[in-house]
C-alpha cells in the first residue's frame, strides 16, 4: 500500500510566548510540551516524582531532628578526617561534592558534543563522568565503612547522640548512592552506544524499536544532573546544618 501523501500548509505558525503560550500549549489538543521529545518530557516527569521521594526523606529527617530531645550529633566532627595528624572537618564530603559537580560539568559537555555528532568526544566525556560517579560511590563506601566499623553507628543507635541520626543518614545517603550507581551503569551503556555510532545510523534503542537519536545523551544528562542536584540539598541540610 502506498504511503499517504504528505500534506502540509507549508508554513508553521509562530508559537505565542509568556502566559499566552502556556494557555496555548496546554489547550492545543496536541502534545503539551512543544519542542521537547517525548523521552525528555518523560524523564522530566520521572525526575519530578523522584524529587518528591527525596523531599519526603529530607522532611522526615527535618522532623525527627527537630523533635528529638537528645542533642543531635555534630556532622562537622563525625565526618572529619585526620590528615597530617590534625582533624580537617567534613573534608571527605567536600571532596565528594567537588567530584559530583565535576561530573556534572563533563556530562553537560558530553551532551553538547553529542548534538554536534562528535561521537568520540561525547563518549569519552561520558566515560569520564562515569569514572567520577564511580569514585563518588567508592568514597561513600569508605565513609559508611568508617561509620559502621570504627564508630559503631547503626540505624537504631550511635555513640554521638540522637539515635535518629543513623537511620536518616543511611536512608538518605544510601538512596542517593543507589541513584549514582544506577547512573554510572547507564552512562556506560549510553557511552557505548554513542561510541558505536548507534545514534548516527538510527539503530533501534532498547525498550523501544524506534530509531535512537542524540536526545538520549541529553536525557541521560538530565538524570545525572538531577543526582548532582539532590546532593546539593543533602550536602546543605544534612552535612552543613
Amino acid at each position, binding site marked *: 500500500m502506498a504511503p499517504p501523501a504528505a500534506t502540509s500548509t507549508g508554513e508553521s505558525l509562530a508559537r505565542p510566548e509568556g502566559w499566552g503560550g502556556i494557555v496555548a500549549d496546554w489547550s492545543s489538543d496536541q502534545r503539551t510540551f512543544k519542542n521537547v521529545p517525548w523521552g525528555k518530557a518523560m524523564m522530566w516527569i520521572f525526575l*519530578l516524582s523522584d524529587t518528591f521521594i527525596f523531599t519526603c526523606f529530607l522532611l522526615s529527617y527535618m522532623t525527627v531532628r527537630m523533635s528529638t530531645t537528645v542533642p543531635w550529633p555534630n556532622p562537622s566532627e563525625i565526618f572529619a578526617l585526620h590528615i597530617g595528624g590534625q582533624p580537617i572537618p567534613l573534608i571527605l564530603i567536600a571532596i565528594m561534592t567537588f567530584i559530583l559537580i565535576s561530573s556534572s560539568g563533563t556530562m553537560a559537555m558530553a551532551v553538547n558534543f553529542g548534538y554536534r555528532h562528535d561521537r568520540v568526544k561525547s563518549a569519552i566525556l561520558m566515560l569520564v563522568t562515569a569514572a567520577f560517579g564511580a569514585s563518588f560511590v567508592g568514597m561513600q563506601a569508605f565513609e559508611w565503612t568508617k561509620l559502621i566499623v570504627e564508630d559503631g553507628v547503626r540505624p537504631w543507635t550511635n555513640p554521638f547522640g540522637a539515635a535518629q541520626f543513623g537511620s536518616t543518614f543511611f536512608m538518605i545517603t544510601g538512596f542517593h548512592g543507589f541513584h549514582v550507581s544506577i547512573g554510572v551503569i547507564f552512562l556506560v551503556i549510553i557511552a557505548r552506544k554513542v561510541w558505536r555510532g548507534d545514534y548516527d545510523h538510527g539503530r533501534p534503542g532498547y525498550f523501544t524499536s524506534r530509531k535512537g537519536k542524540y536526545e538520549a545523551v541529553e536525557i541521560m544528562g538530565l538524570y545525572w544532573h538531577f543526582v548532582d542536584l539532590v546532593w*546539593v540539598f543533602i550536602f546543605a541540610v544534612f*552535612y552543613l546544618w
Partner: protein
Amino acid sequence: MAHAEGQQHPISMYLKIWGLLFVLSTFSYLVDFYHVEGYLRWSLILLFMILKAGLIVAVFMHMMWERLALIYAILVPPVLVLVFVFLMTHEADYTFVTRGVFFGGP
C-alpha cells in the same frame, strides 16, 4: 531560540557555570570550616544551596531555554512542597513539647 537540533550552546558557557559551582561549593564549605553560627549560618547555607540548584537546573539541564509550559509544570510542584515543610515544622514542635512534658518533669 537554539532548537535546530537539540540544545546548541558554546562549551565556554558550561565551563563558566562549572567554575561558578566550584566557587559556591567552596563558600558553603568555608561556612562550616570557619564555624559561622546562628542565623547567618542558616541563611548562607540556604543561599548557596539555592544558587547552586538554580544554576544546575537552569543551565546544565537547559531549563532556561525550554517553553514556559514545561518550566511551570516541573518547577511549581516542588515549590508547593514548602506547605509540607510548614506543616511538618509545626508537627515536630508539637512532638518536641509533648516529649518534654512526658519525659522531662518529675
